[in-house]
């Protein structure tokens, strides 16, 4: 039988058993829709993470104390005290590929103004910090080098802190707030940055001179982080190399000794995040794909019933000249037609589902290839799970088949 005839026969058979065909399609529809939605959410989240990170500045380089933690080995606390002010100065003086540097120390706790209080974090930074982060001051101004030199008790606050401490909407500039009972005079309010992809409120913070935070709040001499910005994103690799050299010299590390600091670029962060998102997407899609497997078994079941029910028809077709291969093809095309029709409907349902998820606030983006993959998978399911019933039909003995009641 030629292909057009096969298609005609298959569609006719599906049409004459509409409800049953629809039921066996249902599994495929749900499976494909689930895969499409999961892929769309995975892809959408990845894109939004990338966008967020790149908004943070793709040329940012972060230096943290302690050797590379990516192996997951716990480090002793003294190893975490390896970054010093001297490192910061040495970078400032020697690094060619770095335009801005800010040492960072932080602490979290209660901040109080009058009767209002809120819990937040205070970050001790240099004047370069806002430039590195590409943050803007909305009201007032950044503290100055002089404030740093004098360890002045001045600060900038984020929008959330401003809202919590000044709910009546008064002007925060010039007011004195207390963080861990240390008074800070507000010199500026930061422009709102909203939430980041990980759900963190980027406006719930206080920024103060690092000298002030180190001496008056933490009473420590080591740094938590050093943030730098490379001249351009492309130069981050050279910048990292240069920073490593400077820090190794400054830490007087010998040839065989490991780095006792870790340098990560925003770029790297982005790649790590992307691959994490990829992993999550794969897990989601695999879970959804299992429903396709179940759907395939459903199709096999229906096809087996259909083959048994049509034993007489198979016997007739054989006696008028159908070969085993013709019968096999007929049932294969039928199961492929069921699964591809299910696939088309599944893509449509998945598309609508994605729109709904988008409306509910999930980041979504349907990758074109996920639709292609769905069709390929549906065809494979049709062939894979249709093959056994089709073989069974093809192997029938025409004499017995035509007598079957």
């Amino acid at each position, binding site marked *: *039988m030629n292909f057009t005839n096969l298609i005609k026969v298959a569609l006719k058979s599906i049409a004459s058993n509409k409800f049953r065909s629809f039921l066996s399609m249902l599994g495929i529809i749900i499976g494909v829709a689930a895969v499409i939605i999961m892929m769309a959410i995975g892809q959408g989240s990845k894109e939004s993470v990338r966008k967020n990170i790149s908004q943070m500045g793709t040329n940012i380089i972060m230096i943290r104390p302690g050797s590379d933690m990516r192996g997951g080995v716990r480090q002793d606390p003294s190893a975490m005290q390896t970054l010093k002010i001297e490192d910061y100065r040495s970078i400032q003086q020697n690094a060619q590929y770095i335009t801005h540097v800010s040492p960072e120390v932080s602490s979290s706790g209660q901040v109080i103004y009058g009767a209002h209080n809120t819990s937040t974090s205070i970050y001790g930074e240099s004047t370069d910090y806002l430039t590195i982060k590409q943050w803007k001051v909305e009201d007032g101004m950044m503290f100055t080098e002089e404030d740093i030199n004098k360890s002045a008790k001045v600060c900038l606050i984020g929008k959330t802190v401003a809202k919590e401490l000044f709910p009546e909407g008064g002007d925060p500039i010039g007011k004195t707030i207390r963080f861990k009972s240390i008074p800070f005079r507000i010199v500026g309010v930061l422009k709102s940055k909203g939430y980041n992809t990980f759900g963190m409120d980027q406006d719930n913070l206080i920024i103060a001179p690092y000298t002030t935070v180190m001496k008056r709040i933490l009473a420590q001499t080591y740094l938590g982080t050093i943030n730098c910005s490379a001249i351009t994103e492309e130069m981050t690799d050279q910048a990292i190399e240069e920073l490593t050299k400077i820090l190794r010299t400054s830490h007087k590390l010998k040839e065989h000794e490991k780095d006792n600091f870790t340098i990560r670029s925003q770029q790297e962060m982005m790649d790590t995040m992307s691959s994490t998102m990829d992993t999550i997407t794969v897990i989601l899609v695999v879970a959804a794909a299992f429903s396709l497997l179940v759907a395939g078994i459903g199709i096999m079941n229906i096809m087996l019933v259909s083959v048994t029910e049509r034993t007489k028809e198979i016997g*007739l077709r054989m*006696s*008028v000249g*159908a*070969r085993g291969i013709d019968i096999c093809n007929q049932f294969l095309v039928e199961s492929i037609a069921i699964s591809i029709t299910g696939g088309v409907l599944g893509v449509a349902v998945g598309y609508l589902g994605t729109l709904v998820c988008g409306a509910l606030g999930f980041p979504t983006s349907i990758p074109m290839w996920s639709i292609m993959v769905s069709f390929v998978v549906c065809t494979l399911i049709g062939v894979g799970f249709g093959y056994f019933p089709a073989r069974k039909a093809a192997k029938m003995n025409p004499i017995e088949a035509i007598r079957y009641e």
Partner: protein
Amino acid sequence: MEEKQKKVVIELDNVRRDFVVGEETVHALRGISFKIHEGEFVTIMGTSGSGKSTLLNQLGCLDTPTSGEYYLDGIAVSTMRKSQRAKLRNRKIGFVFQNYNLLPKTSAVENVELPLMYNSAYNARQRREAAEAALHAVGLGNRMNHLSNQMSGGQMQRVAIARALVNNPAVILADEATGNLDTRTSFEVLVLFQKLHAEGRTIIFVTHNPEIAQYSSRNITLRDGKVREDVLNPKILSAAEALANLPIPQDE
């Protein structure tokens, strides 16, 4: 005789067919030999279990002999593979079954087209034309698009006969083709077979009704898997006359 010059369509040479059932062997056909020439209308008779269906399955290339040889239109069948026999059935044989075996919910013309679906020499248009011609030949030219389940038994059997004709076969094989029909309709179908016979078709008609033998040109009787009697019918009755003489049904 005139018969001798005609082409041999079917030749059986000592055909045996054994079935092994558990420990026992059933000898369904015990060495059958005969020739059937083009244009003969042969009835095959015999009691139940005498081997009629087994023989018909051999003639229809649905089964192969345990020993012996069967030549259909000069082609040796016994050594053929399944797919080759399928093709042979498609080109050389037309089957008519007792219970019609039409595809359900399918129009008459589509049912008749079925054998040609498996013949790549026909395109859709040629297939439709051949099917329409066959339906005209059985007197159903006005019932082309009726669905199989909307037809009477007689009409269904005519559709089945049209389906058996559509590939212009070397031989038409009928198994109890009137077995499910009332007397009147049986005669109508017999009239049709006689018409096909008159047009030169070769027909083999299996039946256990001795009356039917009177309307055929030759009668082979089986008993216990052997040919017991093989006679030509010197005086073929006309089914059309018999039909005319039947009492007209009283109801309506």
